């Protein structure tokens, strides 16, 4: 008996969302179709919205939702059978199936939850889908987000997101719902981790829009990462990714000023960093490192984030170690963004000349429109006392970014460089954002 608890639509949606991933995963096993499974899970939500406000939340909501969704599946099968005019023969099949399915319902929500969820994760993040589709489908099937919520989170038009999900489900229709074979494992796992990290980064350093960060999206990525760590406890890179996002997220409270403005790493009030997330991030990093070599790119990035977390002030940052970690990272995961961050670390460990030399050796063409590159050059030039060149780079960075608070930071730096004394003390460590 739960008296006094008013069951509103919000209550029903919250409970459904808590169960939705396991629900869709179990239904995907029963139907072998992620699209159908998702529809039946939605049907169960509709039924719950009708009934729970009157009856209260059932004692076993997961079981209730699974039974309800499964009944929808059986009804649908029956309708199809009627339509085909083979009712008699199929009625028996349906009944047999129904009994089997009823027995499976309990299985689906107990022993198999882990395996079902893993199959769902690997299917939603299947390499035959584009990264955007994988992200949308993952937020839908593993986050329980509605299409409008996903559209808001990704700042994409609702119709575009809906279209992506429909197309993704269609693409997956021929794809067996199963765990990847051993030979594909590394590539398939990285397709999953990439989705979680993209969701995190979209929240942490929004590519566009008026908000500098979107904490709810970071929180969703943290949640997805923690779920993955529970499902794949022996995979070092899963813990590496969790460590990375926990450590980065620990800075969120300090990353935005009271007026919504952007506050970069060097200027953050580190007392406002989230100690609980730092502790969890450090634990996850230790776990990743203890699971053995070879050390992967997420674990390396987490190790770098941990260096920042350990520094009580920006001045105490161990830039030598960070620069060395970037050297290793550039080796295992060669890409221009890593090289830019490496240049920043070198700029502090060895001096701005070294950093600038490294940046200038990069393929400028590939990064022509990348705002952070211009900002990093601007900072290194400012520290070398080349104020006018620095101001020009910051103006370029401001023109290139689509994020308004980020633009404000660059514009302020451009103005400061324009009339600043040489060798300004200020600096923009770019480690604060990697994408």
């Amino acid at each position: 008996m739960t008296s006094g608890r008013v069951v509103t639509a919000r209550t029903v949606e919250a409970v459904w969302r808590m169960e939705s991933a396991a629900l869709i995963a179990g239904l995907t096993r029963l139907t072998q179709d992620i699209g159908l499974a998702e529809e039946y899970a939605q049907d169960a939500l509709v039924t719950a919205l009708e009934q729970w406000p009157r009856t209260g939340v059932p004692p076993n909501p997961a079981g209730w939702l699974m039974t309800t969704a499964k009944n929808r599946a059986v009804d649908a099968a029956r309708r199809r059978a009627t339509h085909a005019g083979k009712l008699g023969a199929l009625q028996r099949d349906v009944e047999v199936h129904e009994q089997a399915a009823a027995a499976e319902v309990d299985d689906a929500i107990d022993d198999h939850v882990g395996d079902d969820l893993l199959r769902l994760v690997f299917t939603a993040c299947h390499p035959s889908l584009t990264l955007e589709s994988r992200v949308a489908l993952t937020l839908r099937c593993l986050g329980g987000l509605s299409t409008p919520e996903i559209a808001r989170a990704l700042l994409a038009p609702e119709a575009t997101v809906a279209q992506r999900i429909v197309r993704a489900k269609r693409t997956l229709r021929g794809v067996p719902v199963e765990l990847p074979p051993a030979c594909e494992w590394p590539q398939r796992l990285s397709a999953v981790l990439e989705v979680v990290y993209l969701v995190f980064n979209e929240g942490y350093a929004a590519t566009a829009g008026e908000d500098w960060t979107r904490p709810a999206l970071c929180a969703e990525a943290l949640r997805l990462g923690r779920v993955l760590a529970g499902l794949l406890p022996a995979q070092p890179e899963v813990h590496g990714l969790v460590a990375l996002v926990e450590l980065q997220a620990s800075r969120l409270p300090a990353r935005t000023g009271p007026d919504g403005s952007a506050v970069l790493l060097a200027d953050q009030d580190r007392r406002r960093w989230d100690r609980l997330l730092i502790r969890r991030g450090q634990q996850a990093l230790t776990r990743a490192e203890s699971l053995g070599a070879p050390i992967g790119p997420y674990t390396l990035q987490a190790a770098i984030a941990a260096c920042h977390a350990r520094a009580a002030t920006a001045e105490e940052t161990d830039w030598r170690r960070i620069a060395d970690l970037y050297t290793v990272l550039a080796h295992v995961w060669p890409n221009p963004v890593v090289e830019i961050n490496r240049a920043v670390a070198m700029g502090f460990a060895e001096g701005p000349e070294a950093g600038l030399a490294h940046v200038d050796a990069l393929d400028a063409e590939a990064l022509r429109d990348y705002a952070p590159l211009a900002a990093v050059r601007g900072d290194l030039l400012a520290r070398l006392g080349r104020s006018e060149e620095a101001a020009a780079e910051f103006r370029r960075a401001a023109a290139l970014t689509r994020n308004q608070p980020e633009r404000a930071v660059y514009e302020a730096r451009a103005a400061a460089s324009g009339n600043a004394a040489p060798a300004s003390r200020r600096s923009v460590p770019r480690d604060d954002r990697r994408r």
Partner: protein
Amino acid sequence: MRYLMLLKATQPASPPPPELMEAIARLGEEATKSGALLDFAGLAPSAAGVRLELTSGDLIVSDGPFAEAREVVSYAVYEVRSKEEAVEWGTRFLDVHRKHWPGWEGSTDIHKVFGPEDMAPSS
């Protein structure tokens, strides 16, 4: 959004039944795997604690036990997507008490922890 849950109850005459402890462990595992439960611990009776009180400029130090009939017996930190979700986890926690320890009475206070979402000027 983050919530701190404080479980309050009178100190029991007998230790909790093992079935309850097992059910709490299972629920905790489920909540951890779902990414919601970040931290938790049981608290020793307040007889092991100390209360510091500042009144009218005087700092008063008194050893436990505290005078309240109900003591805080455990805490848990949850990261969830809505208050309703926090209420659901709290409900499940009290439900295992109801199921495995008949007659037990207690309460859970759910406190919202200030987070980045409270700092953001927009949204």
